[in-house]
């Protein structure tokens, strides 16, 4: 992990920090690269076509960016390179090292999956296109997104069967649903909604075991009634199929060096995502986790700060660092030094604490913005949790710190958190973790109660 950002928004060749996102690369270099790519592609495709078992298994899939291009309209020529750069990033996030992908034309890609079955191959292609739509427009209509599967060859050319992603999902839904009456009575709106969630659930299951993946959780600014921030959340699937998310993922990692690498990777990925969204006119803040093991030793800290130095100036006001795994009672001077090193690269810094931590006097005057806390997910113990929240906020306020409650699993805890005085709340009633963060969003109590009523 180099700790640099591959988007166009990093420092230019002169080393000068650019104030705004730079222009796209020259057409000439693009043409020569494309010719080379096409020659390479032809050779590799011929090799592939000699393997009919791939066709039979439905592992050769094609998707194109025509709907995205159409929506961009006149902006397509200037946006094209950014779209392709974003496509490469999304592909690298979703494909395994054994999968192969080609860009075959101005708006078309072919993917050859190494192992997945036809249905999952279709879904993965669809997910890639869906992610791109969300990055550029913030929404998606699964009925207009199409993916194609190669079903045979004719005169050396691949023949495809094309389906909309909505149809593919409905097919899966219908084949797995045992309740015919329920299916028949579903409205088109309900069916579409379930398809979107199906896609995310199915796709989440595909993630490689033991790989740390990234997702984002919305954070609600209760005072302003706006979802302002999206919290980068590491997610890891265990061999047993269960999912671990958040700081618990870091607890599974024994090596400090690996932890630092994961923190740097998270920083790079979060900033690249934020940059892409920023360039597409989205405005939001992203909270990025960084562990004590990364900031305490000088060598690891320098590696992290070098990566921070590559954050474009125009994004720094949208970044929050959340400090994790800090032992209680880090001396005030030490804390101040660490915060001072991070502050040039961000808007705020929060420290993750324990709900039972009774006081924060060592944090006064360190420059820390606030403290965050995970609220236990246990409805039977909510009365005790509520008392804990009151004590926590009172102590934080005495130290002049803002407060964020994370993992708020019920509306009763959300109300109690607000009653206690928390300024930020994150948890399923506010919004579930998602692959791509969204705009800042107006969100009020009625939205919270509506969200919590959804299955």
């Amino acid at each position, binding site marked *: 992990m180099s700790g640099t950002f591959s988007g166009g928004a990093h420092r230019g060749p002169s080393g000068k920090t650019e104030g705004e996102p730079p222009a796209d690369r020259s057409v000439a270099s693009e043409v020569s690269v494309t010719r080379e790519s096409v020659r390479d592609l032809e050779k590799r495709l011929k090799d592939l076509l000699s393997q009919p078992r791939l066709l039979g298994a439905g592992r050769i899939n094609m998707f194109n960016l025509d709907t995205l291009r159409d929506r961009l309209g006149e902006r397509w020529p200037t946006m094209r390179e950014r779209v392709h750069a974003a496509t490469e990033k999304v592909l690298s996030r979703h494909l395994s090292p054994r999968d192969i992908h080609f860009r075959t034309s101005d708006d078309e890609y072919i993917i050859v999956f190494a192992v997945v079955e036809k249905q999952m191959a279709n879904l993965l292609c669809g997910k890639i296109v869906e992610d791109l739509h969300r990055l550029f427009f913030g929404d998606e209509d699964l009925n207009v997104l199409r993916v194609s599967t190669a079903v045979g060859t004719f005169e050396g050319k691949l023949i495809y069967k094309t389906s909309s992603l909505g149809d593919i999902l409905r097919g899966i839904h219908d084949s797995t649903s045992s309740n015919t009456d329920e299916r028949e009575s579903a409205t088109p709106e309900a069916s579409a909604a379930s398809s979107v969630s199906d896609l995310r659930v199915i796709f989440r299951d595909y993630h490689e075991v033991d790989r740390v993946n990234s997702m984002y959780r919305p954070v609600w600014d209760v005072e302003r009634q706006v979802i302002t921030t999206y919290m980068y959340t590491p997610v890891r699937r265990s061999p047993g199929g269960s999912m671990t998310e958040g700081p618990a993922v870091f607890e599974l990692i024994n090596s400090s060096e690996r932890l630092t690498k994961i923190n740097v990777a998270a920083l790079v990925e979060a900033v690249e995502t934020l940059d892409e969204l920023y360039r597409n006119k989205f405005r939001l803040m992203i909270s990025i986790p960084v562990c004590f093991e990364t900031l305490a030793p000088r060598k690891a800290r320098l590696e992290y700060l070098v990566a921070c130095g590559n954050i474009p100036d125009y994004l720094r006001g949208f970044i929050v660092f959340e400090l994790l795994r800090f032992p209680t009672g880090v001396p005030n001077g030490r804390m101040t030094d660490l915060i001072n090193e991070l502050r040039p690269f961000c808007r705020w810094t929060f420290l993750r604490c324990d709900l039972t931590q009774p006081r924060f006097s060592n944090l006064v005057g360190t420059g820390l913005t606030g403290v965050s806390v995970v609220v236990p997910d246990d*409805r*039977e*113990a*909510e*009365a005790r*949790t*509520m008392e804990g929240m*009151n004590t926590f*906020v*009172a102590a934080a306020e005495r130290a002049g710190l803002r407060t964020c409650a994370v993992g708020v699993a*019920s*509306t*009763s805890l959300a*109300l*109690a958190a*607000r*009653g*206690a*005085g928390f300024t930020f709340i994150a948890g399923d009633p506010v919004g579930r973790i998602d692959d791509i963060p969204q705009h800042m969003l107006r969100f009020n*109590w*009625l939205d919270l*109660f509506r969200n*919590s009523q959804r299955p």
Partner: protein
Amino acid sequence: MATVLIIDDEAMVRSLLRQVLRREGLDVIEARDGVEGLEMFRSRPSDVVICDLIMPRADGIETIAGIRRLAPTVKIIAISGGGRKHAVEILKVASDMGADHVLGKPFNIDQLLNLVKLCLRTASAS
């Protein structure tokens, strides 16, 4: 005799309200949280419900919505959750979610009695 259901996780509040309402000749039943409150309302529907908002297991808003589903016309008074702050903001949500009246803590007991009487009058009139 009219029945009032008090749903509040604070024993002291329940005790105070019980005494005052019984003195007015009302039958009082109590629940310690929203889950218990809903069960109690299901087994013995009351004329007026006084519901706290910040409670464990099921908050007042969920509880009010649940009671409304069982008895759309029952009169409900939401009282502010007892949190350290922001009672008014949360009471407004209760009002939006179906409470007939809202009252912030600490409240004057006469205010509450007047609201209960108003609820009973409008209930009998309708």
